[in-house]
């Protein structure tokens, strides 16, 4: 593809590189773009990336591994789109994703991304673990296979395979059982939701995954879906309708909010802790859900919610988006955004970081260890905090 065929050829040069995209809402820190925070070279800022993409499509620079690294180091956290003052801001992430797509089509992508996508093509998960192991986490729980219950509990790849996130998936299931929610899971029948595949620019693979999933959901008569991961939530809510798959989809924190309001989820067990909450990009900036998780936490007696300097629209991404929880282009340094975030969380004096996303969970867990703070700062998924408040202290 040449520039003339590029979907955003008429706007990509309109980036002035004024740099607003690097900042949080209040400009307190130039580091709110995860890739720029990590590398601190203009090439890794959103504006730099756009200029490089244009130069590449325009034949001014050649494709290199390094260029691919720069393009794929965008973790689609959407901070740029949020902060850009110009009127094409909504398209910024799309402009970068379109460039990823072009590299995907040419087949020249970083090997980590190649492995990620091939693993999904083969095994339906980025890790390349066997499909038939997807449902293993269910073992030993009372969680049932989906067969027409009210909700389909869609777990996603990270919750199904990552050792730590599997515990979260379990706990969430147990809380839902405890609350008497009628739900089931797909187990080995579940397939990748494709959110990351989409953000990595592998459009046709995403379409295939979406269409297969939609068909499966329809065949099983699924109407309502509750997801563990905001990434799944985003794909099913915002992208599946394009493939004629409209379902009533909730992130579990939204469901919790209703259950607590409706008195079906009793968190009066309480829990004494000062907790800070890390907004996941695919719940916050992508879907504007900032309140449900906070309301759930505030509903638990004894929990004191301490906000980090950068929160809500201004949140610093953990770096786990756009497949980077696997490809990890931002790792290997103390400027790894996840580690910056942990230091910010620690500064609030909280004893735990509440997360609402398995990707954030794994990224921040690694970061808290890298910072040597695992004794002082726990990474807890909201489902686990709620679980402790309602499961542990049984009547």
């Amino acid at each position: 593809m040449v520039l003339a065929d590029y979907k955003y050829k008429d706007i990509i040069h309109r980036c002035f590189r004024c740099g607003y995209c690097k900042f949080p809402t209040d400009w307190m820190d130039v580091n709110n773009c995860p890739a720029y925070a990590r590398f601190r070279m203009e090439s890794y800022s959103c504006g730099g990336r756009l200029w490089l993409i244009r130069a590449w499509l325009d034949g001014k620079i050649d494709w290199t591994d390094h260029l691919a690294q720069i393009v794929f180091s965008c973790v689609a956290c959407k901070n740029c789109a949020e902060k850009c003052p110009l009127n094409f801001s909504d398209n910024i992430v799309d402009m970068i994703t379109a460039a990823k797509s072009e590299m995907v089509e040419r087949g020249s992508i970083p090997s980590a991304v190649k492995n990620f996508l091939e693993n999904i093509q083969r095994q339906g998960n980025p890790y390349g673990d066997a499909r038939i192991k997807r449902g293993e986490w269910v073992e030993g729980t009372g969680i049932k296979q989906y067969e027409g219950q009210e909700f389909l509990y869609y777990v996603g790849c990270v919750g199904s395979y990552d050792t730590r996130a599997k515990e979260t998936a379990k706990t969430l299931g147990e809380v839902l059982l405890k609350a008497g929610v009628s739900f089931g899971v797909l187990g080995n029948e579940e397939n990748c939701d494709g959110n990351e595949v989409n953000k990595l620019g592998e459009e046709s693979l995403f379409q295939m995954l979406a269409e297969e999933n939609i068909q499966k959901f329809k065949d099983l008569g699924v109407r309502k879906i509750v997801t563990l991961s905001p990434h799944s939530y985003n794909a099913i809510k915002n992208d599946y309708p394009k493939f004629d798959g409209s379902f009533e989809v909730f992130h579990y924190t939204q469901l919790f909010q209703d259950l607590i309001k409706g008195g079906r989820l009793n968190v009066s067990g309480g829990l004494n802790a000062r907790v800070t909450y890390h907004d996941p990009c695919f719940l916050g900036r992508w879907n504007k859900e900032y309140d449900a998780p906070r309301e759930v936490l505030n509903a638990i007696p004894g929990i004191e919610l301490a906000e980090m300097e950068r929160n809500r629209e201004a949140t610093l991404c953990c770096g786990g988006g756009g497949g980077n929880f696997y490809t990890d282009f931002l790792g290997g340094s103390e400027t790894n955004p996840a580690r910056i975030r942990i230091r910010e969380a620690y500064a609030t004096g909280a004893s735990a970081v509440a997360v609402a996303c398995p990707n954030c969970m794994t990224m921040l867990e690694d970061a808290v260890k890298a910072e040597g703070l695992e004794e002082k700062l726990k990474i807890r998924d909201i489902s686990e905090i709620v679980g402790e408040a309602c499961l542990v202290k049984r009547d």
Partner: protein
Amino acid sequence: MAEILVVAEHRKQGLADISLEMLTKGRQLADRASGELLAVLIGKDVSRYAPQLAQWADKVLAVKNDKLEQSLAEPYQKTLSPIIKERKPKLVLIGHSSFGMDLAPALAVELGAPLATDCTNIAMKNGVVTVTRSIYNGKVNAVYSLAPSETVIVTGRPGEFPVEEGQQRGSVEEIDYPLEEEIDYKRLEGYIEPEVSEVDITQAEVLVSVGRGIKDKGNIEIAEELARALGGVVACSRPVVDYGWLPSGYQVGLSGKTVKPKLYLAIGISGAFQHMVGIRGSKMIIAINKDVKAPIFTVADYGIVDDIFKVVPILTQKINELKG
């Protein structure tokens, strides 16, 4: 009476270990079948090696060819096929080396002989040769039988047949290279020795070695940190070099370097045999890999079955704590 022919292979630095391994195995088979063991060697001043071969072989056939600095497939094939056709050995043993891989299949076709390659075990019962091969990434052993015929050819996997000193005092017959015509369709242009990397992994006492499981160049950092904590250096298995994550100088294994450190810590290495061959000399081997069935655990002294990205950073930190 059964004759076993071992094709000896020599490199600049001398006889290839694999040839001694094949001779050892050949000797055992010959004794059991009360047969004769013949070793064939072709090249420049081969007489130099003949006595060594004669420790195992009943007879050494040393074919002198001054053009041949070290073993090459074509001249060997041209020399061997008439010899084999004439002597009809029951079994021809060749090492499954870069040389053997080039030679054996073509030779087998020329002779119309059954061929089994890369064998981890070889047996000969009343004239029938059966072999064991390790397949499906080392997860399965397969036993094959070779159809009875004048001659069968088997290549053996390096490192599977431990060398035992030979007690033989075989005779040596030197002959001149029979064919003089140039092989014009395939010219040898020379050799390139491996690039010397900044760190010499063969000299390191502690090696932290990464494999495919490290997933990306950027992640090698965690291994470097661990290596630093242990006062060692980083090494790697083949895929890491294939992906361009580390220069080839860091590669351990058959096509890389053979290492003998005090501690070999394998991170995300499944343990293909090509790799394992290179680490046998290690005093202690520790493997961290999420696949409990990874072959690396069959050579490791200790193992952790878990996600390397979880374990390694903690391990580094614990070690630094212990160092105080």
